Structure formats: C-alpha cells, structure tokens
C-alpha cells in the first residue's frame, strides 16, 4: 500500500481533535518525522500536555475549559482583537490574551476570577452599546457567538445607554444571491477579512477606515457582488454574528440537525454538513473533519445546493416499460423487483454480457464502488464504466503504469509541506477551488510555483501569488516539455537514485534513461534550484493527458 502523509499519524496530545468543536486557535502542524516538544502546564488546577507553540486557549479547550472569545476561531491565526479571552498567569502581571499567548512549561493559568469576570463583562458591555437589540427576531438567534458571550459573562445592563455613537443605521448589502451583509451587527472582529485572506486567499475584503469608523468593506467599499469575492462562503462561516448570514437561514430559520456528506460537484470531494429542517436541506456548511477540505468550501458546494429541492429532481422511484411510455411512480419494493427481473430476463435472453452499469464522476468513490460491486457480483460481468473515462482514462493508464496507482499518491494535506509546486495543464482556482486555496496558502508561505500552461491562469499572478515561472508552452507540447525536464535531470545526475532503486524496475528504468538522455530531448534551460528543493508537488489536469 502507498505511504502517505497523515498529520494525525503521530497522535500527539492535542492532535486528536473533534471536528465539531472550535478550539480557538489552529493546531500546531507537526511532521511525522519531527520530534515534538511537549509542554506541561496547569489550567484552573488541571494539568495538560500540549505541543510547544500551542496557545493557552487551545490547551484549555482540550481540557473542556472554554475560555470566552469572539475574534478567535481555530481556522484562523490568533488575532488578539476582542480582548475577552484574557486570563491570569501566575508570576506575570496584567491579563494576557489566551489566544496569542503560547503555553510554557510549568505555567499556571487561571481562566476565571472576579477581575477577569468584571473585565469580560465590561468589554461585552462596550460591544453591546453599539449593537442592535433585536436578538429575538435576528436570523442568528440561537446561533450567535455575541449572544452566547453576553450570556456567558453575565451582562445585565449597558450603562452607556443606547444613544451614543453607533452603527445601527448602516445599510445592508443584499446584492449577493446567497448571503446578506448587515454591517449594523458587525463587531469588527475581522474574522471575515482574515478568512478571505488566510483560508480562501482571495483578499477581497478589508477594513475601511480606522478606530470607531472601522467597517468591513468588499473591494473598494463596494457591494459584495461587485468585488473580487468568489462566494466561497468562508467569511459567512467565520462570522460570529448575523452580520454575514446565509439567505437560506434568514428565510427559513436555523436547521434542526445536520448530516455529514460529500459534495459531488468536483473531484476534491469536500465534506459538508448538510443542514436539515425536517427532510429539507436548508444549508450546506463545510465540515472540518473533511480531509480534503478541512472546513473550507467553494461556491458550488456551499451555496448551490438548490438541486436538492429542484423540481426536476426525482424523489420517488419510477418505472416504465419502454422509452415511449410515461414514468409511473412505484414503491421501492416494486421498483427493485421490476429492475432485477428485467435485468435477469435480458441476461437470460441475450447472454450475461448484455447488461452493464455506468457510474458518474458526480458520484462519490463509495457510490462508484457499490455500482461496480453490483455489476461484478450481481450481474456477474465486468461491464462497468464511468463517464470519467472520457477525460480520465489516459490519466488512469499513465499513472497506473508509472506510479502504480491511478489515483493521487498523496493526501491533499501534503501540499502544506511542499516546497515546489508544478501545475501543468490545470487551472485549480477554477476547477478545484478548495484545493487551490490550500495550495495558495502554502505558496504565500514561500513555496515556489511553476505553471506550465498555454493559458495565463489565475495562479500565474494574483494577489500575493506570483509564479516563479510561467511556461506558456504551445498547446500540444506538454510532452516535449516534460521530456526536456527529464532529460536535464538525468543528464545532470539529479535523479533520486535511492528512490529509483527501491521502487523501480532496473531494466525499465535503464531503458527509459537511454531514451531520455538522447540530446534530442534536451531542453531550453530550466532552473536547477527547484529540483533540489526536496519536496515537490506535481498536479496535473485532464488537458495534459488528453493531448497526443
């Protein structure tokens, strides 16, 4: 079986997480081969061991001590803005913020005291002095962190009154079809801005002005629809109040429960919580436990779930004898009975091979597995195919032959550790946006990017992303490029000999090496430095494999 990168493999204390909880600040990312320095500290009299670099807030969360907070969330770097999470540390004066303060060996933390309680109450009082008092009719009623915190800290009155300067007259932005932006409820925690920067990487949002005049602005103080917003919904998800709210929730109210499911829109396969009222899906919120998306989404899975209630959707089994007949509703038993009988009849008459099954790239891996199981085990033949054949059969063949498996050889998580990323014949920001966001995050941290594509895709240059090289080769010359690269590697002895010895057949490799060393495969110069980077991530799209 392939080895692959799993950030949870080491199972360090604090590494096993519940995806339904918000731990306040991000987990420390640890390599399988990294030795982690553990630190023991005491919080409210309880001891906990956490990796060095973890915040006190996160450490406390692992003890089920939920330090009150508003601007902290574990999908974003600690910010230190709301000042509600202040705690006391023995031996230190003042009240450090637990989100931005890291754990240290022997630290003794107190998260609750008379002073911290008063401080938190007074800060909440300031927040509420500039906030509408319409909790009961607000779309976030019951799901609002501001409301929660006001309750947690025991706020009872706002001694400043409600006639001071405020933002209650701010105008709503209802330009977007899927969500509403109501600045009157904004607490300027900047979570939306940070989400658009850190998680999505579009940088469509900013804070306009400063001080009390600070307000969230899309683009140059435009409507969301007019800005660079790609409607991924990260800001809506990050917003702790009703400021950014899904229209479906505003209209329908909060869901009663959720079901974890996989989005079928593209090959990334993001995990979502389908939020349900009764039997109706009223929202789709990314699920943090999804290893492909880690809590992020794109517009399709996040908002375009209208298909679930579309009038064209078939919700009851239907059968008919032939294509000229109208569909007739049937019960499940009737339908299954009908289908099974028909298939058996056809096979009896025309032979075992006369039936087959086609699955779809819209199906999940699990669904596709079941279809081929049905065909092989029940139909008794191998007549199963997928529409993905049209685009991916060359991919499948090529990958299987060279790498041994016609699938990605690494987890999506592995992009977080790449030093060099090569994108050939793919346009991830459009086609696989959630993965693109994860990749862009790594690029902003300093990984190098090489794009080989006739198109000037967004990745070549967009805010904070600058490809080291854009090889805009002529269509059809992908192979020449790749062969040229390979030629140089071999000619200069840069191949990973150990890897090849361990994983390749000697004869096959030598045969290929002879071929590739031929000067006719020699390239235009390509910078050597990228190949010595250690870890490279190679991402190819369908266009590469289709060209011949």
């Amino acid at each position, binding site marked *: 079986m392939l080895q692959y990168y799993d950030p949870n493999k080491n199972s360090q204390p604090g590494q096993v997480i519940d995806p339904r909880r918000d731990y306040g600040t991000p987990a420390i990312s640890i390599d399988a081969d990294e030795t982690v320095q553990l630190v023991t500290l005491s919080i409210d009299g309880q001891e906990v061991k956490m990796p060095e670099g973890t915040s006190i807030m996160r450490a406390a969360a692992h003890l089920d001590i939920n330090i009150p907070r508003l601007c902290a969330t574990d999908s974003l770097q600690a910010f230190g803005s709301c000042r509600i999470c202040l705690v006391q540390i023995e031996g230190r004066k003042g009240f450090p913020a637990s989100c931005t303060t890291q754990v240290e060996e022997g630290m003794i933390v107190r998260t609750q005291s008379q002073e911290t309680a008063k401080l938190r109450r007074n800060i909440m009082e300031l927040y509420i002095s500039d906030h509408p008092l319409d909790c009961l009719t607000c779309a976030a009623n019951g799901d609002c962190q501001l409301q929660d915190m006001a309750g947690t800290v025991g706020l009872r009155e706002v001694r400043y009154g409600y006639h001071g300067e405020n933002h209650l007259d701010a105008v709503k932005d209802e330009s977007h079809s899927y969500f509403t932006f109501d600045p009157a409820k904004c607490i300027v925690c900047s979570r939306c801005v940070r989400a658009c920067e850190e998680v999505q990487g*579009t*940088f*469509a*949002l*900013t*804070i*306009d*002005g*400063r001080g009390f005049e600070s307000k969230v*602005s*899309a*683009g*140059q*103080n435009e409507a969301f629809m007019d*800005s*660079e917003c790609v409607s991924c919904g990260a800001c809506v998800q990050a917003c702790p109040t009703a400021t950014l709210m899904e229209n479906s929730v505003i209209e329908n109210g909060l869901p009663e429960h959720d079901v974890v499911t996989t989005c079928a829109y593209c090959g990334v396969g993001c995990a979502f919580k389908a939020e349900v009222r009764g039997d109706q899906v009223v929202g789709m919120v990314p699920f943090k436990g999804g290893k492909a998306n880690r809590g992020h989404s794109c517009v399709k899975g996040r908002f375009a779930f209208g298909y679930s209630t579309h009038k064209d959707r078939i919700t009851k089994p239907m059968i008919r004898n032939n294509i000229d007949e109208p569909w007739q509703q049937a019960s499940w038993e009737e339908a299954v009975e009908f289908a099974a009988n028909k298939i058996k009849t056809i096979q009896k008459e025309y032979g075992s091979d006369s039936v087959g099954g086609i699955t779809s790239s819209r199906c999940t891996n699990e669904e596709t597995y079941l279809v081929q199981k049905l065909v092989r085990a029940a139909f008794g033949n191998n007549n199963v195919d997928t529409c993905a054949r049209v685009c991916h059969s060359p991919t499948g063949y090529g990958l299987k032959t060279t790498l041994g498996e016609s699938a990605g050889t690494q987890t999506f998580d592995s992009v977080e550790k790449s030093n060099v990323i090569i994108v050939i014949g793919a346009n991830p920001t459009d086609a696989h946006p959630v993965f693109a966001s994860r990749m862009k995050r790594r690029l902003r941290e300093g990984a190098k990017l090489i794009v080989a594509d006739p198109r000037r895709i967004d990745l070549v*240059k*967009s*805010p*904070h*992303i*600058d490809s080291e090289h854009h090889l805009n080769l002529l269509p059809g010359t992908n192979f020449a490029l790749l062969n040229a690269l390979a030629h140089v590697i071999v000619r200069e002895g840069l191949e990973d000999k150990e890897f090849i010895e361990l994983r390749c057949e000697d004869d096959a490799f030598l045969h290929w090496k002879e071929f590739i060393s031929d000067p006719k495969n020699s390239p235009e110069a390509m910078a050597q430095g990228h190949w010595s980077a250690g870890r490279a991530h190679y991402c190819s799209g369908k266009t590469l494999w289709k060209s011949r």
Partner: protein
Amino acid sequence: MSIDKEASKEEMVLAIVSKYKEIPGPLLVVLHGIQQELGFIPPEFIPDIAEGLNLSRAEIHGVISFYHFFRSTPAGRHTIQLCRAESCQAMGSRELERHAKKSLEIDFHQTTADGQITLEPVYCLGNCACSPAIRVGDAIHAHVGAESFDAIVNELISEKVEVKN
C-alpha cells in the same frame, strides 16, 4: 478632463508603481508618490496599483482609508492643517479652530466654495515651543491667532496663479 490628461495621469501612476515595486513593502511609498504628483489618490487607479504590486484592490483601499494623510478626492488649491493637540490647546488653538471654521465657513475635511482652501486637523507639527501652529504646504507657522490666520489666508488667496503651458 481631456482624455490626454487622464491618460498621462495613469501613465504617471504606472511609472511610480514601476519605480517602487521591487522594494520591500512598497505600498505606502507608492501612495505617497502618487499623492505628491496628483494631490490625491484617484480610486480609479487602484486596480493599476494592485496589478503592479500584486496586492488586491481591497487591501489597497484598506490602507488608503486607514491613514488620514491620504486623500481619495482632490483638495482645494491650498490645504491648511490646524494643530489640535495639547500644546497648541494650551495656547488657544480651540479659539483658533472656531475662528478658522467661522471665517472660512467650512468644517474640517471640507473645502471653501471657491475651491481655494481645504481645512484639515493635524495632531502636532513639532512646533510646540511656539504654539499654536498651522501648516500650509511645507511651511509651518507659529504663534497663530485669529489675525495672523486671516493674514495667511489672504495671502494664499491672492497668490498669483501660475499658468503652465
């Protein structure tokens, strides 16, 4: 505004962006450069700056709106910055402020009807030994009172306008 003038404005913006884009953290330097040339930073050129520096329009807008010195609209022919800080308060800047607003008939951040004077607050010009102080262009004035303020304004308004060919 003729198309030529607009085009040359954009060229100038692009030139400034090009000049500074390789230095570390160039945005404020670029914005200062543009405001120096044009008197303000026209919002329509923000996309040019974004493209050149590889930032987003939102980020640039956020930066411009943060710093009180940067303007998104043109100022009057002259900008008078009036110090409102403590040292000047100790020597009567509150009265000066009232007088300035009354005599110019505008409030802070506004321009007189004839487009001559824009009035802005400033917080300390470093002239605290001789408060109250005001700034016009790069010239700082000391011991400013109602009379001397009026004299300065009159001189500004009656300045001959240079006709550039």
